[in-house]
């Protein structure tokens, strides 16, 4: 393991075995996250982003999910194969996750103060009174007055609820925070508040973060590195500057062309042709080939390998294989 790395994902493969067939949700994934670093995990619906997060948390529902192979090295130890007790200690304490839908992660019949305090009690062996004090401090941190700790989630707006979820996720000072589309359900001005808050807290606590999103604007704003996923594969992976300045994979380029450019006028968008493939019946060869402008005959036959085209810039595309 490299010195500054907090997490290394090696050849991770996760499948869902369903009656309709096998979904190759994550295929041969290789990623690294350094201490204090933020990795953006980007892709469209069904690309495998949430499954990756659940894999790291060791929470993939089994059945139907199965970690078929690979390693998840966190602070030098492989999380795959650890006992339930060990994993419980790591989750919440060292790795915490903000789930896609904020409402599902809050208990409607418990005050927000108690909910934060409970997490603290569970993981930090502090007594009830101290935990509640710490909970109030966390609320203030995320911009909610401490006296509102006695209120219930339904008394809060969407943006405030999401801030409570962030407070819970950060209450135990995790070293790794996985945020799964934490602002997708929020309005832009509230999203700006929440992202701003996450950036501040992350810097303050030196937390590493995986930011799952389909919004390249959010990536530009908060991430250091980016992995673009398509149909279970990380098809391009590099630092943010390189990805934005010089994207290489035809899918990455297609994504950039699909979004309207707010800074410039353009008459027509250049969409990626075709549709998302059926996850249980992915195309042969490169899974992107039916939609790819650059595809040649070999793309339907040979599966592209992860190729390091320059130091730290990985692309899964046959165009870049020597």
């Amino acid at each position, binding site marked *: 393991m490299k010195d500054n790395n907090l997490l290394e994902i090696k050849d991770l493969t996760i499948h869902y075995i369903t009656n309709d067939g096998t979904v190759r949700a994550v295929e041969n994934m290789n990623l690294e996250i350094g201490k204090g670093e933020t990795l953006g995990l980007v892709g*469209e*619906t069904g690309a495998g982003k949430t499954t990756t997060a659940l894999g790291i948390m060791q929470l993939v529902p089994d059945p139907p999910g199965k970690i078929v192979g690979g390693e998840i090295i966190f602070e030098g130890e492989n999380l795959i194969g650890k006992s339930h007790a060990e994993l419980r200690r790591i989750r919440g304490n060292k790795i915490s996750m903000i789930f896609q839908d904020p409402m599902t992660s809050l208990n409607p019949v418990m005050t927000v103060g108690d909910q934060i305090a409970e997490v603290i009690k569970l993981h930090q062996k502090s007594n009830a009174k101290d935990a509640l004090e710490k909970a109030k401090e966390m609320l203030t941190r995320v911009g909610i007055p401490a006296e509102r700790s006695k209120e219930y989630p339904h008394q809060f*707006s*969407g*943006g*405030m609820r999401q801030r409570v979820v962030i407070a819970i996720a950060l209450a135990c000072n995790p070293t790794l925070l996985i945020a799964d589309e934490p602002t997708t359900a929020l*309005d*832009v*001005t*509230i*999203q*700006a*508040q929440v*992202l*701003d808050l996450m950036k501040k807290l992350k810097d303050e606590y030196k937390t590493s973060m995986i930011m799952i999103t*389909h*919004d*390249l*604007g*959010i*990536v*530009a*704003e908060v991430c250091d590195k980016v992995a673009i996923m398509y149909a279970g594969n990380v098809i391009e992976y590099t630092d*943010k*500057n390189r990805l*934005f*300045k010089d994207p290489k994979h035809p899918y990455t380029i*297609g*994504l*950039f*062309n*699909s*979004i*309207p*450019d*707010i*800074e410039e006028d*353009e008459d*027509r*968008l*250049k*969409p*990626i*042709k075709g*549709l*998302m493939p059926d996850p249980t019946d992915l195309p042969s060869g490169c899974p992107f080939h039916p*939609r790819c402008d650059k595809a040649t005959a070999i793309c339907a036959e040979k599966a592209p390998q992860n190729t390091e085209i320059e130091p730290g810039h990985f692309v899964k595309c046959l165009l870049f294989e020597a």
Partner: protein
Amino acid sequence: MQEKLLEVRNLKKYFNTKKGLLHAVDDVNFYINRGETLGLVGESGCGKSTTGRVVLRLLEATGGEIIFEGSDILQYDKYQMREMRKQMQIVFQDPFASLNPRMSVSEIIAEPLVVNKVFSNRKEMQARVKELMETVGLAERLTQTYPHELDGGRRQRIGIARALALRPKFIVQDEPVSALDVSIQAQILNLMADLQKEFGLTYLFISHDLSVVKHVSDRIAVMYLGKIVELSDYKSMFKDPKHPYTQALLSAIPVPRIDIQRERVLLEGDVPSPINPPDGCRFYGRCRYRQDICKETTPELKNIGEDRFVACHFTNNLKAAVK
């Protein structure tokens, strides 16, 4: 000289709720020229969908006028309105929820033709359905499939084909691409632009995605809590937003570029309740330029020249408003 297809004057829609009168649309004024797209943006609950529905009389207005091709359709009786409906259609955000799951693709597209008895001859109707499917890019083999068998992009194409069936002049697009992945979203946006050109359509395009709205609109109206706070051509609005809320809204967009650093205006707090709102500017509580007058008097949407409209007491003079 451009011709107004639709003009809305002092439009109001209030809902009676347990907690009081909810001002969903409160004294809204705008017009849309023939063949153009007016974008309607604003945050969740600000009244965009209600405006769209009231304009089509899918919801009854509480007050105001809706002038379509010169006459106030709020004065129309049921029969006149039925004729009118053919001219005005709507496409919804969630194509799944708005399509009858028990009807096949061709039945869904044919439904408005059947209801309005457009064809007496079955063959002619089938030909029209086939033509509509072709227009929106649905393969002929999908004729007998059902909505649940199709992906979101195709379902949205069905919704568009159905809206086009009666050859309308005007279409309300209520978040038509919000549920779609970006690669599919771009396909649908291009399709809608092509249709607009081909059939001379006029759109009211509702969305909370400002990049999308900027791309499709000729002019844009920004709503906040039931009111339009700014309305202007898209270029001026993005170059030089006048209303403090528009400024904050535009600055909050995460831009997928690293070569441009934009200055962000972070807003404090959340949108207040639309129930029995107090007098004064609706944006008062969150505005960094607020003065006493803003709390007392509701600012009117005023023409500040070059067909730009702003509802703020300190338009063009915001700096002076800072204490």
